[in-house]
């Protein structure tokens, strides 16, 4: 079972060995409303933790998505180009953004686990 971790900016990373898949949380997609476009990073791009990894657009807003972990982009979710609504319908699954080859797995230790994030989100409302 892969391990999913969260940031306070509502990004998640799901780690499987030395790679991690990143996306935004269900809470974040609800706040954004209907997603109309996702600008994905180029494959091969090397990102430091907290670098801008993607830009997500709703009709009236644009939000930067920062990578929770450092790594090289090895794959992006091309399906989002055809159907950005996947971010709304399945933020934790089909709505993933990119897959990274992790360069510093110790970064994961500082991120929130599922339960902590759940408590964090509840504290926001």
């Amino acid at each position, binding site marked *: 079972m892969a391990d999913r971790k969260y940031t306070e900016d509502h990004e998640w990373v799901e780690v499987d060995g030395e790679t991690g898949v990143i996306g935004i949380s269900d809470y974040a997609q609800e706040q954004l409303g*209907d997603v*109309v476009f996702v600008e994905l990073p180029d494959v091969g791009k090397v990102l430091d933790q907290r670098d801008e990894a993607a830009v997500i657009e709703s*009709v*009236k807003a644009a939000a930067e998505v920062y990578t929770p972990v450092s790594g090289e982009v090895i794959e992006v979710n091309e399906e989002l180009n055809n159907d950005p609504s996947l971010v709304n319908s399945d933020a934790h699954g089909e709505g993933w953004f990119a897959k990274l080859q992790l360069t510093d797995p110790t970064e994961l230790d500082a991120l929130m686990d599922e339960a902590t994030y759940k408590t964090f989100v509840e504290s926001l409302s």
Partner: protein
Amino acid sequence: MSHSRDLSRGAAAVGSATTDTVHGHQGLLLEEPLLFEIDNPGAIGVDLPDPGDFTPRLGGVARQGEIGLPSVSEPEVVRHFTRLSQKNYAIDMGTYPLGSCTMKHNPRLNEKMVRLPGFANAHPMQPDSTVQGAFELIDGVAHWLKELTGMPAIAMSPAAGAHGELCGVMAIRAALDDREGGPTTRRRILVPDSAHGTNPATAAVCGFSVDAIPSDARGRVDVKAFADKLDDDVAGIMITNPNTCGLFEPDMIEIAELIHDAGGYFYCDGANFNAIVGRVRPGDLGIDCMHINLHKTFSTPHGGGGPGAGPVVLSDALAPFAPVPWVVHGEDGFSLVEHADDAGDAKPFGRLKGFHGQMGMFVRAYAYMLSHGRDGLRQVANDAVLNANYVVSCLSDVMTPAFDGPCMHECLFDDRFLKDTGVSTLDFAKAMLDEGYHPMTMYFPLVVHGAMLIEPTETESKRGLDEFIAVMRALVDRARAGDSDAFVAAPTMTPRRRLDETAAARQPILRWSPEVPTAEAAE
């Protein structure tokens, strides 16, 4: 691209719109298809003579095949665009209280003046001796603007407010570079968080980073927070005054001294000059430059989104860096400086557009200035401020003003008064459409929750304001009465009801296409 003459798609689209009537018309509310859907090959809206004998000299690149433009006769074109016009709201029809946009009456004399053959048919590259009247007009408008702002110099060529911002910030950049003898090391422009989006965007396209200054509890620039940010990395500050909350910035003079002491320059966004024209000269506040939206304060028409004009007044410190061209007055009359080589000691930072500026807007603005005179323009500011404060005084018991005290030319409300009604600012605005009003500016400025920014302008009568106020009060009553469904469903009586902006953005259809109605088909 081949051009299909198939009408079926248009007919289907229009057909789907019909509910009660054969063609979807509702009395005077007439449906109108795209021009491409009334294409009638062979029809034409112009008559042109035969060219006679000539030698074709297009090399090998003469156009082959059809373009795909529709063919329509003049009566059909006139009817088409007349019907389209009737789907628009306009100042000519009613109150248009769109805050920060200054939707005031557009006098038709201005339109008549710009159509004088001596202006309309003048080519921008005629010999100076043949266009002395045109130069005289530009010089006249420049004089009015310098006089009213108390500033010594002006750049006339910027095409709109944001273009004026570009001009001003580039002049700042050029002055800093000149002072430092190379690219300036100053990287930051300070911009209040209440600023219009063009301010940070402009700073960015001039190579600066943007550092936001918070607003204080009074809706003004927090002077202490501003002062704390000052260091030798700051290139300048951009402040809108009166600001986007409709409030005068009382600390302008202090801010000017602080920014100058720190070695930076002071950009003033003059979008709201209408509130103070004739009463305050921004030059007296210590600013270095300010753009003036002629389509706001000086009533050149907004035209559905433009064109505008954004001349920029400049301090002595920035004047040498103004872009070409400019008009000069010598012994032989007026002439034009178009090239840096002819600029004497000046160091123009470049050129912002083709030719000399938005001449047609200068002509309109000049007619407006002469009509009002210095006395009338001061009255413009007085009445604009009076009207806005009257609206506040008549609505503050049912709506929630964002800030206390008198406002300038526009008044800002937040959405506290809608709390627990299930009605949002957007819903409230859409309900205004059914009442026959254009809504106020919504969700701007960003510093206030659910902002509603109302700018009546000085050309609204008391009777018009009273009717508007009555509508607003009635809508508040209805919202509080729990009728949120009606708000969410609004508007119901407009040419179109709420449109699906999500679908428009997810699968953009940005042009008519003959076969497949999606943008991908154009690939």
